[in-house]
């Protein structure tokens, strides 16, 4: 390593210390594995050195510094930790479903750090997730990007310095919840568009008025007419931040027409950097997505669970990828998250996507969509030590994850996988009988069904 590179890495360490990252970090040398870097090809018999949570060397014959654990990965595959860009595990409440727009709520306030699903995801090689608000509302709450540091508290799970993101939702979910559920707008896809436009206009008005008030207040000297206060409005602040490009949008969507609709709306307001999630019909408008620089995060082959999801194809991700759209595969499920490697592999089986691109769909591409690709998503010097080790090539159906590291700390080791990894014990509940959590609880519509029942919640 040349001197300049070393200095750069030292500066990276210092910057982490300076911002007060208090999360546990580890030092480990992973030796003699087949290293799938994602961005710089494959290194046979390669080593990955992580020091204090940061990858400092990748290559051959790397020596372990004092204090670093050494893992023998011979015969195994080493890859970046998988990133799930659409998840609802580790969430307390998922949907603040009481209003079509709830941009002011934050999933960062709704983290369940004790959810056993975190450990299960680690067992599948996942190191980061995007904990999304649900899809009940046209504009839901801000989401939270997490690192799966199982055993840490709520703050300990947060991905430091990850950009702000927010959930939008089009189509049947918001129209069902609010149109059918309450008889208010939106009842139709047209209504969904109008909710967004009206909210954006209101936010622009709000920001203008608020800033005018703050300026007048600053200048008011007790003479003449005092300014009329404009209260800070958290909902409008968030929307205005979206328009100004400070928040990345992840939009639940299925149909091609509504995808085009939202891109037109965003064009009108100058919104850039957004991802269509699910997007089962995105393949129909792949060139338009590419032209707009829009991203897509899709299922490999999951559809037909409601009317708007019938027109689907297992070639979706491959077509999008072939058209140059940054595409990821997501789980939206506490079960699928455990084998996202298989989900990515399906793009090879169905659409002849290359192995390299298939791997990107669960590593670098979701990192790009979440704005964290400068930190994770590939094995590169200077990036975080988020790594998973597999028994075979991770895109093989026979491959089994062996270990998962986050910031150089091992959070999953198959050889140390005890029968009971639950960490939150409520003495009032029967602990002896393991409860099986319905995986549908991790879905986009969690917390919404009370709206459709007269007796629910009573």
């Amino acid at each position, binding site marked *: 390593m040349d001197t300049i590179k070393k200095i750069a890495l030292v500066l990276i360490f210092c910057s982490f210390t300076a911002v007060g990252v208090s999360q546990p970090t580890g030092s480990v040398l992973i030796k003699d594995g087949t290293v799938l870097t994602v961005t710089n090809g494959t290194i046979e018999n390669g080593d990955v050195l992580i020091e204090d949570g940061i990858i400092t060397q990748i290559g051959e014959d790397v020596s372990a510094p004092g204090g670093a654990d050494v893992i023998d990965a011979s015969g195994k595959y080493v890859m970046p930790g998988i990133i799930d860009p659409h998840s609802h595990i580790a969430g307390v409440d998922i*949907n603040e479903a009481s209003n079509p727009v709830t941009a002011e709520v934050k999933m960062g*306030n709704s983290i369940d750090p004790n959810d056993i699903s975190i450990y299960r995801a680690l067992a599948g090689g996942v190191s980061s997730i995007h904990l999304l608000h649900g899809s009940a509302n046209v504009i839901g709450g801000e989401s939270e990007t997490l690192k799966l540091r199982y055993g840490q508290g709520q703050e300990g799970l947060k991905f430091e310095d990850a950009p702000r993101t927010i959930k939008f939702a089009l189509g049947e979910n918001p129209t069902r919840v609010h149109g059918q559920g309450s008889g208010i707008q939106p009842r139709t896809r047209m209504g969904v568009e109008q909710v967004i436009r009206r909210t954006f206009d209101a936010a622009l008005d709000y920001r203008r008025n608020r800033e005018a008030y703050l300026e007048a207040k600053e200048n008011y000297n007790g003479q003449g007419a005092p300014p009329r206060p404009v209260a800070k409005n958290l909902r409008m602040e968030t929307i205005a931040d979206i328009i100004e490009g400070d928040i990345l949008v992840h939009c639940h969507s299925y149909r091609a027409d509504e995808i085009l609709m939202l891109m037109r709306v965003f064009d009108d307001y100058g919104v850039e950097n957004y991802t269509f999630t699910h997007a089962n019909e995105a393949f129909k408008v792949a060139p338009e997505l590419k032209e707009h620089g829009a991203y897509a995060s899709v299922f490999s082959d999951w559809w037909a669970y409601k009317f708007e999801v019938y027109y689907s194809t297992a070639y979706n991700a491959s077509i999008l990828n072939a058209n140059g759209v940054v595409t990821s595969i997501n789980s939206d499920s506490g079960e699928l998250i455990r084998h996202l490697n298989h989900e990515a592999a399906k793009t090879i089986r169905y659409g002849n996507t290359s192995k390299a691109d298939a791997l990107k769909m669960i590593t670098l591409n979701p990192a790009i969509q979440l704005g964290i690709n400068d930190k994770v998503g590939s094995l590169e010097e200077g990036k975080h030590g988020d790594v998973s080790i597999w028994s075979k090539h991770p895109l093989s159906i026979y491959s089994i994850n062996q270990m998962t590291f986050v910031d150089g700390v091992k959070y999953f080791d198959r050889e140390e996988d005890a029968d009971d990894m639950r960490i939150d014990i409520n003495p009032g509940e029967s*602990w002896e009988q393991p409860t099986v959590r319905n995986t549908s609880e991790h879905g986009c519509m969690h917390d919404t069904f009370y709206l459709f029942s007269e007796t629910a919640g009573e």
Partner: protein
Amino acid sequence: MKRLLSGVCVFIVGLAFSYSASAQGVPAKAFENVTLHKADGSTVEDAVIVWRNGVIEAAGKNVSIPFDAEVWDGGDSLHVYPGFIDGYAYWGSPDQKQFEDTPKYRGKPSYERAGIRPERQAREAVKMDSDDFKKVMKKGFTTAALGTKGYMIPGQLDLFLLQPELQIGDLYKGGVGMQMQFEESYRVYPSTVMGIMARFEQLMMEAKALNEWQGYYASSSTEIAPPPNDPVLEALYPVMQNEQRIFFKADSKEMIERVFALQDKLDFDWVLVSGMEAYKVADELKQRDVPVLASINFPKKPEWKKEDYEEEGEVTDEMQGFRDKRWNAYLARYRNIKKLMEDGVQVGFASADLELKEMADRMKDWSEYGDVTPEEMLKVMTANTADILVKGSALGGLKKGQVASFSIMNKPFIEEKAAAVYSVSAGELNELND
């Protein structure tokens, strides 16, 4: 009217601490031949306690009883305790109104529908003739901060000196704090914990703006439109201006941490209520100087821990491992208060969600597994709670000059079937035998 006058009198006198009872023309009252249990844990046998006009005149051995005193003989078998104080109780509070309607615009419910009631005072909601009060007085309580049941912000806590039938004159201090909890209203906004957090933050922003508007209007009423009348937002001013504390009910570590997050944003003072897992964040509570009114609403013991339990089938190693983990979790809950005390957190007592009929059993659990002495329990339920509720108040003890609120029990309070046979509250003696 008589109660009103006496309540106000006790409050003023109690605060002053320099009351000279004998200067009044009111006859004294006394118990003799009793065992005194002081809030500091010390006991005095063959003792006398004298009070007059709602205030303790003397308590101890060799105390001379004033010539005008009406005297009761404890017969060396009665025990006098400072009246227990409940820092957060729902006694007499009617059940939360069950909303049957669902407003069309669920996202914009009225304050009442959303459970946002900071302007509501407990004394307006509590059923003054509830038989709860006599029941708790039999358990040794003489004072309670009464709250109302509700959702996100149920109302204001009022501190009462208890009587079998309350009157407004028994109010010791109104608006001790604003109640708050992560309790969603029914089918309206906010319907989630994150929604409650956002809504509260928004309310505080709106209160701030209204307060500014009122200020401008007061200084220049001809140049600006009059501000709207909004008693709910105005009721938040004391919290916003750090003149009143929030009594925030939360139990799990994560919920308590969410209150920390809110505090960091909004800079309010608060008291943690219930706090069953407060021990997990004791350091943070200490550092933030947040007192805890701890609940003893422990979960009921598992069947296999009961004395008469008969095992059916084999207990495997795995099963035993689960049981051990679960029992350790129980013990941690039981020892919550002790851990907080050890870590230097100010801890008082709150019945909170504990049902009255469960209180004796939970007290027994606390005594048996909580790693606390009876003296420590007494201090938590008296002086500590008093100090959290009203700093420097004259409640919670048996010292000269303190409010004459104490219980005369048939046996030490942690013993089986212990009960108050008399209760003196603000100087008024109630015989509690049925």
